[in-house]
Each structure stands twice: as C-alpha cells, then as structure tokens.
C-alpha cells in the first residue's frame, strides 16, 4: 500500500484578479497511495477544489510539481497525455450543471469510450454503457433518456458512470454529495465505497462535511486558506487533532446526540477568514489562533511529521 500514485510537491496556483493576486493554493505538498482515499476538507475558499483540479491538469499550475506515477502532469504530451486522461477522472459537485442537457445519457457515458476508441462496434458500446448503468444502480433503459428526467441522486450516478466508463485508476471526487439530500448521500457514498473495493480505485475525496470525509477516507488533509494545516489518518485526526484550526473545526461539527452535544466544549474562532488576496504573512491562521506568538508572525510553519504519518503545520506543536 506504499506505492504513491500521486505526489504533489510545493504546488502553487495563483489567479490574477483586479485587486491583486489571489493565492488559491500556496505551497501545498502531499501524496496519495495507490488504492487509498485521501479526504480533503476545509471551509469554502480554502483552495480544496482548485487543488483537486490542478492535480489532474484541468488547471495549469503556477509553481511546483504534480507527479502522477512519477510523471509530471503538466508537461505530458501526445500519447502520454492521452493515457493520463484515461487513467484519471473527476466527479463534479453539481449534478445539474456538469451534465449536458442536450445529450442522451448514452452519449454522455459513451463520449469517453469513443475518445479512447475502447469499443470496436456500436453493439459493444451499447453493452458497455448498459453495464455501467447497472453498476451504478440505474436501469439499462435509462440510456435513451435525457438528464432532466432524473433526480439529483440519479444524475450523480450518471456522473459516476461517465467517470467509470474509461476504466480509470484515480478519481477526484469534488464534493460529490454536497448537493444531495441526506438519505441520497448515503446511497452515493456506499456506491463509491463499493466501487473502490471492486475496482481497486484511488480517490481524492474533496468535501466540507468532516464526518462524511472521516467515514470514507483512509487519510485526511485539512486545508486552510490555500495551505495544508494537517494530514493524518482519519481516526487519529478525530482522536488526536494537533493543529488549532483542526481542533476548532472538529468542535463545530454537530453530533446527532443531545447528550453528547450538551457536554461538548466548542472552541470558538476569533474573527473571520482573511481574504486569499494578499493573505497574511507568516502563519495563515495566526489572526484567529489563541496560541499565536511572535514566531507565527514572522515565519510560515512547515508541514512537519510529528508522529509517524501525522503531519502538521504549526510552530506551537512540539
């Protein structure tokens, strides 16, 4: 399980805006092992979606490196690039805007198959699409319908079928359940877990719902304002959070149990999330952190391994 499928080294992604440079992702490093799920959590605007998109080459990088199986994602060309697009797929957040309303479900799913010439005949293509639809829990006859005929959960299943069509190894799931109702969320999460077991997939699971991320992930990366605050396996993140931001985030998650809720101490954050345009120097979190000292103003904390596999970016953690 130690083979790294994706390695991100000092990745930076800046956007130019009228007011200055928006540092969406600023010096982020992590890796994902083959067959595991890395959860990426953080509040809106922390750069989690930008990280996901830059990792698979949808967005260009500003600086740094993303290695997929040892090859730099952003300098792939020709056959390598084509092979990469077959191995890596993405499931988007909004199942309404990520599917073309003018295409039939069959064509949406078969588009990737055609691009990679995976089916020799129309018959094979039809059989493959029907197999995919059954895999994700839809009916084979749904292939001839249009997207507007489906509910949110069903659309997300179509999105998953489309990603699976080209038999990928690595899938970025960008908030795949945020737009869905509670009872449907569990359906989609169970489907993703089942597919991972059956096909040996690797996931990067981006979400803001920490309890769902903990449930699905082997390891979790917590992001704050374009940087990674903490990475560790999902159980120790809950039992032993080291970064003050992670502690505050965990204490804000509601637990559906009145007695636990009553006893729970909540760590309140001071102030508001600063703007990613010209973010504070030093530690990004210092303005809201009650442990902040002089060093937090001057130096930006490096992501250090404090226990085996437990990385944290904070000066105060010994």
């Amino acid at each position, binding site marked *: 399980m130690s083979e790294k499928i994706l390695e991100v080294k000092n990745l930076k992604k800046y956007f130019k805006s009228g007011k200055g440079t928006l540092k969406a992702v600023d010096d982020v490093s992590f890796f994902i092992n083959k067959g595991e799920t890395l959860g990426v959590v953080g509040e809106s605007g922390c750069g989690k979606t930008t990280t996901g998109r830059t990792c698979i080459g949808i967005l260009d990088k500003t600086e740094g490196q993303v290695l997929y199986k040892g090859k730099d994602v952003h300098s792939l060309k020709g056959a390598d690039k084509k092979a990469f697009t077959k191995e890596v797929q993405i499931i988007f957040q909004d199942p309404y805007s990520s599917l073309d309303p003018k295409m039939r479900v069959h064509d949406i799913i078969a588009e990737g198959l055609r691009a990679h010439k995976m089916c020799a005949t129309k018959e094979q293509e039809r059989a493959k699409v029907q197999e995919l639809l059954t895999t994700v829990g839809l009916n084979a006859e749904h292939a001839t319908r249009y997207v507007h005929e489906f509910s949110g959960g069903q659309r997300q299943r179509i999105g998953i079928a489309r990603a699976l069509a080209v038999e990928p190894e690595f899938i970025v799931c960008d908030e795949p359940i945020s737009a869905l*109702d*509670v*009872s449907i969320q569990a359906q989609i999460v169970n489907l993703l877990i089942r597919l991972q077991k059956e096909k040996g997939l690797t996931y990067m699971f981006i979400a803001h719902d920490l309890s769902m991320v*903990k449930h699905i992930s082997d390891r979790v990366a917590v992001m704050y304002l374009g940087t990674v605050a903490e990475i560790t396996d999902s159980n120790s993140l809950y039992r032993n959070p080291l970064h003050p931001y992670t502690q505050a985030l965990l204490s804000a998650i509601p637990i559906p149990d009145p007695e636990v809720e009553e006893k729970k101490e909540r760590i309140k954050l001071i102030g508001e999330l600063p703007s990613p345009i010209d973010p504070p120097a030093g530690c990004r979190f210092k303005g809201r952190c009650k442990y902040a000292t002089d060093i937090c103003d001057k130096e930006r904390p490096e992501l250090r391994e404090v226990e085996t596999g437990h990385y944290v970016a904070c000066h105060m953690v010994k």
Partner: protein
Amino acid sequence: MEKLLQVKDLKVSFHSYAGEVQSVRGVSFDVGVGEAVAIVGESGCGKSVTAKTIMGLIQTPPGEIKAGSEILFEGTNILAMTEKEWAQYRGASCSIVFQDALAALNPTLTVGRQIAEKVMLHTKVSKADAYKEAERLLTLVGIPNPAKRVKQYPHEFSGGMRQRVMIAIALACQPKLLIADEPTTALDVTIQADIIDLLKDLQQQLNMAVILITHDLGIVADVAKKIVVMYSGKVVEKGSNTDIFYRSKHPYTQALLRAVPRLDADENQELESIEGTPPNLIAPPVGCPFSTRCKECMNICQTQEPPEYEFEDGHICRCWLYHEFAQGNKEA
C-alpha cells in the same frame, strides 16, 4: 406550557400545469411560549411550505390552503385574518429568517435602513430612534462596531454576518415566534455553529419561541427540545429530542439517523442508505408515504394510511408497525 401556536390539519397545495402538487397533506403540531421546535425533513417534504403558511407568505393562486386547515396563534385562527391584520401580525408577532441572506436582503439599502424600516412600520418612533434600535439589535446578534455597520450595505458583510443581520431584522419589534428556515445551509461549519449558538442564546434570553427548519438532524440535537419529522407532506413522527434521538419509532427516522456518519464513532460504521427516492406529490402513494422505501413494509402499508400511535407523553408516530396485530413482528 402555554401554547403559542397550534397548527391543525394543515393542507396546502399548489396548482401547476402538471397537476395539483400536494405539498402539505395534513400537518399538526404545537409550539409553546418560548419553546424551540425543529421541523426536520428532506427537500420537498413540505417543511418550508409549512413555515411560509405560518408567516402568511403563500401566494394564492397558484397556492391553495385547503378548507379545514387551522393555524391558531394565541388562540386566533390566522388563516381567517384580513390583509390588514396579516400586515400587523407579520413581523411584529412572528418573523422569519430565510436560508439565503444575500437574496433576502435588499442590496441597494444600508443594513441600518432595512432594520429601521421594520421598526418604524410597526412602532411609532422617530427615524433617529429607529436607527438607534438598529444599532442595539446589531449588538444583540453579535456584530462588532454597530455604529459603523448600520451605514454599510449587505455586500460589505460576510455570509455569516449577513445571516446575523437577517436575525437582527427578524428580532426587531420583539416577535413572540421566530421561524428560521434552513438558516445555516449555505454557511461553513464553524459559522453554522456560531449562528446556531446565537439562535439558542436569543431563544433563552428573550423567551422567544423558535421554529427551526432544517434537513440536518445534527444541528437540532442541541437546540430543539421538540422535534417534528416530516416526510412527503406529512408528519411521520414527533416527540421530545430524546424521544427522537434515543427512542425513535418510525422506520424513516431510524434510517435517517443511521444514514449520517457520526464523527465520534470509533470504527467505521456501515451507512444505511434509504433506497429509492421520495414520492411524487402530484400523485402521492395510497397508504403510508414511506411504504415505497421502507424495509419493514407490510401489505396494509400500501393500501391504508397508518393512524397516529402515542407512546410516552407527546411522542407520536404514524406507522402500522405499532398496531396491536403487528406487535408480533416487531418489538414496540
């Protein structure tokens, strides 16, 4: 506890080209003075329509409040009020906070003006006093530097602060009932926790009744002492928060609780998914609305609607499993 609001057999439909959408199909519940009640359910279950009906915000047509429905506010049936009485009631007796504060606030008016507007509408005060009241309300909801903030426009506030402004507007004129319709759905978790804490504080401090409408069972655990679970336009279960969280009776409530992962669970528990989708309310199923997705569905569930069964004081569940003939199948 003295009853502030009684909703009795409320039925609301909307007429569309496809047919009559029966959004709310016979909902009854009570809210006591100063009590916090949560209405929980998925999208399309009729929880927002119920809230809007209490506020008198249902447009007719296309909406239609069916004959026989009653909403008693301090004993008066508000559904029978005249437009003038409604204008008095709305805002002064009962206020609402919407989900999307950016859409609900007027972008062209300062925040102070939007609060003062309501104060001046319902009470005879000078403009200067109304603005003073606006400042006091901003302080009450935890917005720092209110003297400067009253002169600012909604776009100068962050999402969480905007929601606080909405709450400040709702609190003007000391309403006895505050309806919060998914007040935190668009917000991040840390801000969500702040807003929920604020609502809880205000409810206790001002002895104001609160109806919290949400799809997230987690956030109501701490706030609401009474919970109403809705499914496809009907109340399937209601009871105290301990009834619902520890002794839930309805298969839908039970499944809903098992469908969300718990942060404090040690081992990775299996999530229970509720297969299928909620029924279409243009042609709702005969019998129990949950029968199409229920794992314990019996023959009778598909043909006859279950009656109410009462367990402990006020804990009510609509499910055939608790009929005396079904007791053998499942422990009550």
